[in-house]
């Protein structure tokens, strides 16, 4: 493993066993995600994108294989330890934002910080929240409730929440799925900016307009990686398909 390797997957498989049927959601996935990477996972419906993302996010456990995050073997962790690791290293951004309507924007962003161990002081939390909100240019809405904001603004808050704890990696699941194109562009621009500043991002999206923004393209089909490539910087005239044509299988 390279010293700047954040996540390492080795021969990961995920099998769902029903009464008479076994479904291989993922087969033999091996992958390294390094500090500063911007990976886009794409593929047809049912190819295992969400499963892979949930494994990366420690929301689920692989049936086989090894998963290391920051050199920690996740197989050895119990659920509380996984929660701790998730809180420390992983930021989630969901398609449907998943903000808590009863809490203010400030409190929503602060929520993961309240679970931090050892506990953070109120001043530390306040500082982190302000920084995160400034990062997404939503500091002026700190006392609003999520249902008082537009979809794009809510997604920004969700991004701020994911950033507040200074995670090692952002896992992003269809970030523009519930947004119009203008807001979608704005959110993707924000993610681009964050990556430029060094944030590691792993994103799942169907939207080919945005898939090409990632530096690395990972294509899945039937639970297997069929293509892994460093996408070149797309000139404005290139389509995403043209960008992806240059991918090579890992």
């Amino acid at each position, binding site marked *: 493993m390279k010293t700047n390797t954040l996540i390492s997957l080795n021969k990961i498989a995920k099998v769902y066993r029903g009464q008479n049927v076994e479904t291989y959601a993922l087969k033999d996935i091996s992958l390294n995600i390094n500090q500063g990477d911007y990976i886009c996972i794409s593929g047809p419906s049912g190819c295992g994108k969400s499963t892979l*993302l949930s494994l990366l996010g420690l929301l689920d456990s692989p049936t086989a294989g090894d998963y290391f995050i920051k050199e920690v073997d996740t197989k050895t962790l119990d659920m509380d330890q996984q*929660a*701790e690791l998730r809180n420390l290293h992983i930021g989630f951004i969901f398609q449907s934002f*998943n903000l808590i309507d009863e809490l203010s924007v400030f*409190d929503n962003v602060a*929520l*993961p910080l309240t679970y931090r161990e050892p506990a953070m002081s109120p001043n530390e939390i306040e500082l982190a929240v302000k920084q995160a909100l400034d990062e997404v240019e939503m500091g002026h809405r700190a006392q609003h409730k999520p249902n008082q904001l537009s979809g794009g603004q809510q997604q920004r808050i969700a991004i701020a929440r994911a950033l507040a704890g200074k995670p090692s990696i952002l896992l992003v699941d269809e970030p523009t*799925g519930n947004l119009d194109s203008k807001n979608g562009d704005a959110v993707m621009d924000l993610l681009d900016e964050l990556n430029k500043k060094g944030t590691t991002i792993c994103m799942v999206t169907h939207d080919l307009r945005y898939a090409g923004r990632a530096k690395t393209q990972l294509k899945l089909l039937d639970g297997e990686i069929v293509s892994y490539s460093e996408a070149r910087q797309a000139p404005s005239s290139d389509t995403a398909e043209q960008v992806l044509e240059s991918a090579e299988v890992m």
Partner: protein
Amino acid sequence: MKLTKTRAQLSLAWASLMNAPGFVTAVIATLALTLATLFVVLSLVNSYFLKPLDVYDESRMVVVEQSLTYDDYDATGFQSYQSMVHWLKHNQSFEQSMMINAGEQIFANLDGEPKEPVLYVGGNYFELLNTPFLMGQGFDLGETLETPDDRVVISANFWRKHYNSDPNIIGKTLSVMAGETDYVHRIVGVVDDSFSPPYMFKASDVEVWFPSSADRRFFHNDDWQSPWTNTFKNLKLIAVLKPGVTIDQVKVDLKQQIDTVKSEWLNNGGITDVKPEVTPYRDVELGNNDDLSLMMLAGAVGLLIIAVLNVSTLFFSRALAQHKTLALQAVLGAKRSTLFKSIFLQSLILMTLSVSIALFLSVWGIRLFKVLAEGRLPLVNSLAVDSTLVIVAIILCIALAYIFSVITARLVNYKTLNTQMQNSGKGGVSQVSGRTVRILIGSQMFVAALLVSFSVMVVSKAMGTINRPLGSDTENLYFANLFQPNNQMSLAERYEHMLQYKQVLLDSQGIDDVALGHSPVSQRQNANTLTDVNGKSSIFFPSQWVGPDYFALVNTKILAGRTFTEQAIRGETNEILVSVSVAENLLPGQDYRNIIGKSYQGLEEKMYEVVGVTEDFNHPKYYDESFGRHIWWPATPYSYMFTIKASEGVKLTNKQILNTLKEKNSDLTMWQFNDLQQEYDNLLYMSRLTVVLCSTLALFTLLLAAIGIFGVLSYNLGLRRYEFGIRMALGAKKARLFKLMSVEAIIPVLIGFAVALAVVMIGFYMLQGQLMSWLILDVRLQLLAWSITLCIALFACFRPLVLLLKAKPMAALRND
């Protein structure tokens, strides 16, 4: 740092609760009311079992009674003065002792010459019972039985009522009516309002205390020597044992003492033995009421369990509603303990609010209980929201918060929480298990149907009592019982006087009619047996003394035969009337009219001829024992009992009637005066209260059940919006969907309902005998209640479904 985390979680918990006002209201309302009831009962239990009695030294205080053995039976609990005085003066066991007895006196120097209950007590009564004085003091310690003691102590209320709170009351006099010369007593003390006389004498309304020697039923009564067989139920010895003396030792000591005067009591009136009965003071004071308090506690705990079950269902629905928020917290790194803490905080906030409101309500509940139970239960005055109750409340608060948190946490599958986030709004169809929903609905229905059925049965019993025809009018009717002390006249002379008094009353303003006769609705009933010519004695029948014109005045119908003759009232003939049920009891299987002319041995072993049969008389208090059976004796004028009909809108008073008759005979005095309607209302008071309380309970139960069923179904259907959207998009008509869902909802409702009904019916028929005085099965009322219960439950089922099906398919698919 931990505080920040806790504060954040508290903030989230509070905000989350504020977002669910229906849930919060239902939980708090349910628990606050139930806990308030529990706290009131706990206060009673505390008084009975934990709190020491406010007396001199409870551990050494005993009550001494006697057991008299006659030739063919024993009588326990009725004491003769001779025994008590002898034990008072001759014992080795007592450090202190005093006699006490209850009675009634007419106070001649007070306005209206009121008759009041009194106690005759020994000098140490006030010390032994820690009696607080507003003014003055009690009697000298020890008994002074040899000479009449002219002192008296009154209550603060008596002082305010009859002496206008005269600040110079000490030394003023109180005269007891006694024939030619009244007995004059000096007031030496005024007892504070906070004092409650011992319950064992049922003397909650005693306001006057005389020394024992003033009880002329035994002491200083030259006209009459009370025999050993003249016994009093309320006559007792209260003693403080010498240190180290046991009750068994006391019994031996007192038996030895009473045997030294055996020659006085042996064969006196058939007495063959006199034995002492010694009981700890607390046991006598509480009687069987400690059992009653435990029963009440069991009832209150049962109610709490039902409330917890109801509230658990609400928490369950809440847990389902909160699944997503909990899932999000888990994704963001909250551990299981953190999630549990989050759930616990919400639960704790709710329990704290519920318990606080319950404590507040229980203060009022205790006040109400004191008003209702005063004179009916002991130690009522000592009930209070004290530190014991507050500690119990705090423990309950934490315990309930923990229970509900555990229930909620068990429903939250931590493992699937994480995976729930994967759906991320992609139209997931995660649902609650159908089995869980059905169990929830079914159990809600079961509990609700059970409670409603029980409440309706209690209400039916109470309504039966209220609606049952008395067999007599009471409106605008009054009862006055007058007597003339030292009346040496013959019955015939008294009869003539009675007619004159009756005429005086008839000539008075505000009086429409007057008849001879005792109150039909008195709290205490007399009862007698009748023995037929073959020597067979009947059961006891409630009885009443009335004149010839009584039946017409109070509208008690004579179904056969006639009323009394004048001769019967003068004591020249022996006549009796009976109610239909008595006739049927004495002559089973025959027409009730056949009893006319039959003779039965009655009062003073004289033969009485049955001259008439009346409709049944259904005294509200005694109906369960007598079932309308009643016999009517002729009201011979040993005293002058009048039933008076007032004119419409006129209110008669004791003073008015007494003063009117005193113009004819200044020696007359009023022994008893009652407003019959008021007396009847008093008798029905508890029944009416029961109707109100049980109806409220039933409605509250129905409301909770409806909220519970609605909540569970509403949330579950909400989760299935996407599924319904798909079905509608595929062409399913609303009616078909309605049918699909209604079957899933209705079946558990019906099953829960049916099981509850089966439990109710089986339970009722098995326990009918024991429960007869509390509840009955009125089929019509019960069917009505069940119908309403089912309708409300079905409405709660259908309403969420109707709301869901109103949405357009696309909206459902988008989960809008």
